[in-house]
């Protein structure tokens, strides 16, 4: 009797739901929500994981703002990276998607080519580009040499190291954004272009008055996603430069990694993580606020 009731209970709709959700809810609690709270608490401590954590109040945040030059440098480097790679990546991938949308042949070939870097690991890509950037025998300096540019020590020079990493990152991300843009472009009804053409709108006018407004939700989405991803750049700097030369490529995530897992400053690393979170959150909210002025939803 009791067993029958138990089976019936387990088979009920709501209990089925909770059983199926169990792993997800435990995971959410254990690996996301719990750590968000725990990380906040850890950020107020000094903790090397071998001795007990020491409550230091706002000391980590104070050090970050006033004493530690590297925290400012890493935030500055990351901002530099975001400011260059996001607009360049969005504009270039939109142009590629528009070219692909011209009903041309070979779309599958082009798509495969642009997608190859997207699926490849950042580590392998970083190695390939290190070889391309090699000052003496590298392909890039050879090609530049043909048009008279003297050899550049790409990754060894503090002023070119970050641009070199930006190039790799833009190059790698184009295919991803392009696919999202292409899906957005294909959702725009052809009749709208035809109507604009009959009205005598030239190509650029059609782009401005049809493509941009109708694609604006997609542009918005790609921009938000690109900004979030760019703030988290790590792999390329870890493999190609280890943050150097002279900290020119120390990004905020690379710095968190150094503080947390090379120097075991858990409290300080957690505080840096929270600053990154705050920066990403502010930028995302800002964009959601700004979108009212330029994004059109039907």
């Amino acid at each position, binding site marked *: 009797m009791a067993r029958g009731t138990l089976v019936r209970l387990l088979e009920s709709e*709501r209990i*089925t*739901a*909770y059983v*199926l*959700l169990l792993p*997800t*809810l435990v*995971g*959410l609690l*254990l*690996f*996301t*929500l*719990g*750590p*968000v709270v*725990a*990380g906040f608490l850890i950020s107020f401590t000094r903790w090397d*994981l071998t001795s007990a954590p020491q409550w230091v109040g706002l000391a980590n945040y104070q050090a970050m703002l006033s004493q530690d030059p590297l925290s400012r440098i890493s935030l500055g480097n990351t901002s530099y990276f975001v400011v260059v790679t996001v607009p360049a990546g969005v504009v270039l991938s939109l142009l*590629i998607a*528009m*070219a692909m949308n011209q009903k*041309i042949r*070979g779309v599958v070939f*082009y*798509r*495969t*080519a642009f*997608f*190859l870097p997207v*699926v*490849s*690991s950042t*580590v*392998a890509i970083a*190695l*390939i*580009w*290190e*070889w391309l950037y090699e000052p*003496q*025998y590298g*392909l890039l300096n050879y090609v530049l040499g043909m048009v008279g540019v003297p050899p550049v020590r790409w990754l060894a020079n503090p002023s070119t190291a970050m641009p070199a990493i930006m190039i790799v990152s833009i190059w790698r991300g184009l*295919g*991803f954004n392009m*696919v*999202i*843009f292409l*899906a957005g472009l294909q959702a725009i009804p052809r009749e709208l272009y035809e109507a604009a053409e*009959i009205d005598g709108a030239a190509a650029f006018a059609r782009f401005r008055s049809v493509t941009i407004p109708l694609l604006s*939700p997609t542009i918005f989405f790609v921009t938000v996603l690109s900004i979030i991803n760019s703030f*988290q750049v*790590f792999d390329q700097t870890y*493999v190609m430069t280890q943050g150097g030369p002279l900290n020119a490529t120390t990004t905020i995530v690379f710095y*968190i990694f150094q503080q947390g*897992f090379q120097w075991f400053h858990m409290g300080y690393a957690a505080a840096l*993580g929270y600053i*990154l*979170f705050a920066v990403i959150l502010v930028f995302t909210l800002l964009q959601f606020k700004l979108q009212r002025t330029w994004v059109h939803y039907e």
Partner: protein
Amino acid sequence: MSDVGARPVVTTFPASSRRLTLRPAVVRRAVAHLFLLIGALTMVLPFVWMLSTALKGNNAILVFPPDFFPHPLVWQNFIDIFKVVPFSTYLANSARYAVLATVGQLLTCSMAAYAFARLRFPGRDLLFLLLVASLMIPYQVTMIPVFVLMKYLGWIDTFRPLIIPAWMGGAFGTFMLRQFFLTIPRDLIDAAKIDGSNYYGIYLRIFLPLAGPALATLGVFTFMWSWNDLIGPLIYLNTPLKYTVSIGLALFQSKFLTVWGQMMAAALVSLLPIIVVFLLAQKYFVQGIATTGLRQ
């Protein structure tokens, strides 16, 4: 309709100007091709250069001007990388991580997605909102506290911190599969209920089999992410024989810098599995990203 209205106007134009109206489309397509060809070449060239270098002997690599075609073809680099580092162990470790993480994600995300999409229970909307909101939290915020948790569990230097979280659902996968499950008609569920199936049976016999394409999309993505993951293995694995390909490669680089032939061979071997998966399942990659973009 507009075609019919426009035709008389067009036919009144002389033939020469009609050719003129045709031209912009042709020009546009030619420009598009040129642009895409240059772009595609820029994408592929570094990979071709990797292949070319991997197939050269050391003395053929450091030459100026660079030579694109290896002659003779040298396979030695591919043999050497398995000798100088335990590269086959790295590959096996990566495969283990990627396969187990993928199976875990497919199972637990589909379970949660089914519950969110088609079952009624108290707190459903709140829990779903919480899950989706967790997508906003960057990995770096939870990285430190999760590491501390794993340390207390005694899981450092094991694969558990990499695999077990994958067996506990995920916001991205659950969200994606839920969108797909919402398209499965309720009639099918009612019919199964009449046939005496309970809600577990409906998940196993109706939702899972119908979700093939969506599961494939999530599968290729999870496989790719875990195969390519650098920071996870970097934080958790210490023993060199436990390294994955990503750390192996990064390490290889710091140890054997300037042995470019071996480095390119190693990069190529590490890319091979993912490129094969991509070429076989390209459709699912593209679909996955496209739906990500349209989900708002």
